[in-house]
């Protein structure tokens, strides 16, 4: 009977919670190990979801209800740093040497946000009026308004695409994929609260892969007067009055362009989680060239790691949107069940 089997899930974000709830509902014993004091992960900081401005709180609340309902054992304030296979079972431990034992493991430890201070030429952490897309979400959630550091309403706002993504200078050459649509969503939100402001998006390509993403782009242009300038931002500098000078090329015209704005939002990308490297020790789990967890097959099975019995769910694999992360976690749960059934003797 696989119902006696035990599954340990690392990471109580949306992927971990979904996988836990699905497995527990099937009658398995599930331990969800979260490093923070609450579950929900980075989504807790988010104000609205693209492309329909849905509430992330609803998503998290539903997931919490599901996990509670199905009898998942949630362990808080515990950060797993070691996965080892001993005598046919997995032993998971943290720095304090708290140990967990299981028959299968799901790594759902998520991603890390790009540290925008590494992109010095954009002045994050140097100039007060440069913020990140995550700062913006937090601001909207807590205060519901956007002001400059001088406590005035910004008249001109620039949104910068590809910060720490597709950039050999920062070591991240992949596309984070959700930033483009996030930028458009945030531009619309700003226009809603500051209808007289001018909002510019500086982009290299707009990668609007999802359903209704492109229509949100159209909507942003038509209803919200958002302007899109094709040119990757080269630098941000602070002027004497604390406004910001931006330099880019208007690549469609082939001319350098300078614009002074009051606030800049950097669309920071998703990076491989800090603990990914730790998980590759003492077992056969591997990471890819970018540092994300490597699945055995990216087309047919993204949920199985290169170590039998250790599974992957959500953004440990690659950048994903909320819906993809949840669906991916559900698929991971199915893979765990297949694995346990195959190995039940």
């Amino acid at each position, binding site marked *: 009977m696989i119902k006696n089997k035990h599954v340990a899930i690392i990471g109580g974000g949306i992927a971990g919670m979904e996988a836990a709830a699905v497995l527990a509902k099937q009658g398995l014993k599930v331990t969800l190990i979260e490093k923070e004091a609450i579950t929900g992960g980075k989504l807790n900081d988010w104000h609205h979801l693209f492309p329909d401005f849905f509430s992330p709180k609803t998503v998290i609340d539903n997931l919490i209800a599901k996990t509670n309902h199905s009898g998942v054992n949630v362990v808080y304030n515990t950060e797993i740093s070691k996965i080892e296979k001993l005598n046919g079972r997995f032993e998971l431990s943290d720095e304090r040497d708290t140990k967990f034992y299981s028959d299968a493991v799901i790594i759902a430890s998520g991603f890390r946000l790009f540290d925008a201070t590494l992109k010095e030429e954009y002045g994050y952490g140097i100039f007060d009026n440069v913020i990140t897309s995550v700062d913006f979400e937090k601001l909207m959630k807590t205060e519901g308004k956007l002001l400059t550091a001088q406590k005035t309403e910004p008249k001109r706002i620039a949104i910068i695409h590809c910060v720490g993504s597709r950039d050999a200078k920062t070591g991240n050459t992949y596309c984070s994929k959700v930033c483009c649509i996030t930028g458009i969503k945030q531009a619309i939100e700003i226009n809603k609260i500051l209808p007289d402001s001018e909002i510019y998006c500086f982009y290299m390509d707009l990668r609007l892969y999802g359903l209704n993403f492109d229509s949100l782009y159209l909507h942003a242009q038509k209803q919200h007067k958002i302007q899109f300038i094709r040119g990757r931002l*080269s630098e941000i500098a602070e002027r004497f009055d604390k406004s910001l000078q931006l330099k880019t090329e208007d690549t469609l015209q082939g001319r350098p362009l300078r614009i002074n704005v009051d606030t800049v939002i950097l669309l920071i990308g998703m990076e491989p989680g800090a603990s990914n490297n730790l998980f590759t020790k003492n077992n056969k789990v591997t990471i890819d060239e970018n540092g994300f967890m490597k699945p055995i097959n990216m087309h047919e099975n993204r949920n199985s790691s290169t170590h039998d019995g250790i599974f992957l769910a959500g953004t440990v694999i690659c950048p994903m949107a909320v819906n993809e992360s949840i669906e991916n976690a559900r698929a991971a749960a199915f893979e765990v069940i297949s694995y346990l059934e195959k190995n039940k003797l």
Partner: protein
Amino acid sequence: MYSEIIKNLKTDVRLTEALQACMNCGICTAVCPAAEFYEYDPRSIAVSVQSENREKIIDLLESDTIWYCGQCMSCKTRCPRNNCSGLIISVLRKLSQETGAFTKSRMGRQQYLILKTIGNNILSRGYCIHPTTVVPETHPEQGPVWKWIYENMHDVYAVVGANLDCDGPGTMRKINSIDLNELNNIFIVSGGMKFFDTINHFSKLKAIEMGMVDEYGEADMEKYTQYLLQE
């Protein structure tokens, strides 16, 4: 003249360093001092060379465009693919001179003027610049203080402890003949002298083509120089 142009481009090791795959983002043009002033766009240079389109590259070799770059290399710092348009330009300029294409553009023809000043200074003095070559009349932007320095060169340099045109170490010292000889030999062995000759050769052909010849039908390079200065 242009046979195997693409192959010649690719044999330059500097191109391997300067051009990975360009994604056309424009981060280079944004901060390019040449784009600031001229009808110039380093992004499109990278894209053209990347295309390996023979016609496009030949057009570049014969154009003013490749001579607009100021070689500050600001493009290198920001490129998200570690490319360097300024270095691609160096490769194109070399090829333009080797093939004689440089004489087809006004900015390209200026190479002859540079050869006559900087090139001569290097070979004859061992320095790129010497105060006697910064003549106030042709360098009014140097201002009245420089004019005073120029007119009192011997005194002014001596007062600040320089060793102008004298033997031994020190600022602006004379490079002695043994060292100049080594320098000249390096130019001969490493292809520098041949390159100077190539620039001279094509410039002379251009002068003849433009009808600037002396009584013996030889290129009148004094006339050509005056023409370039006015051009």
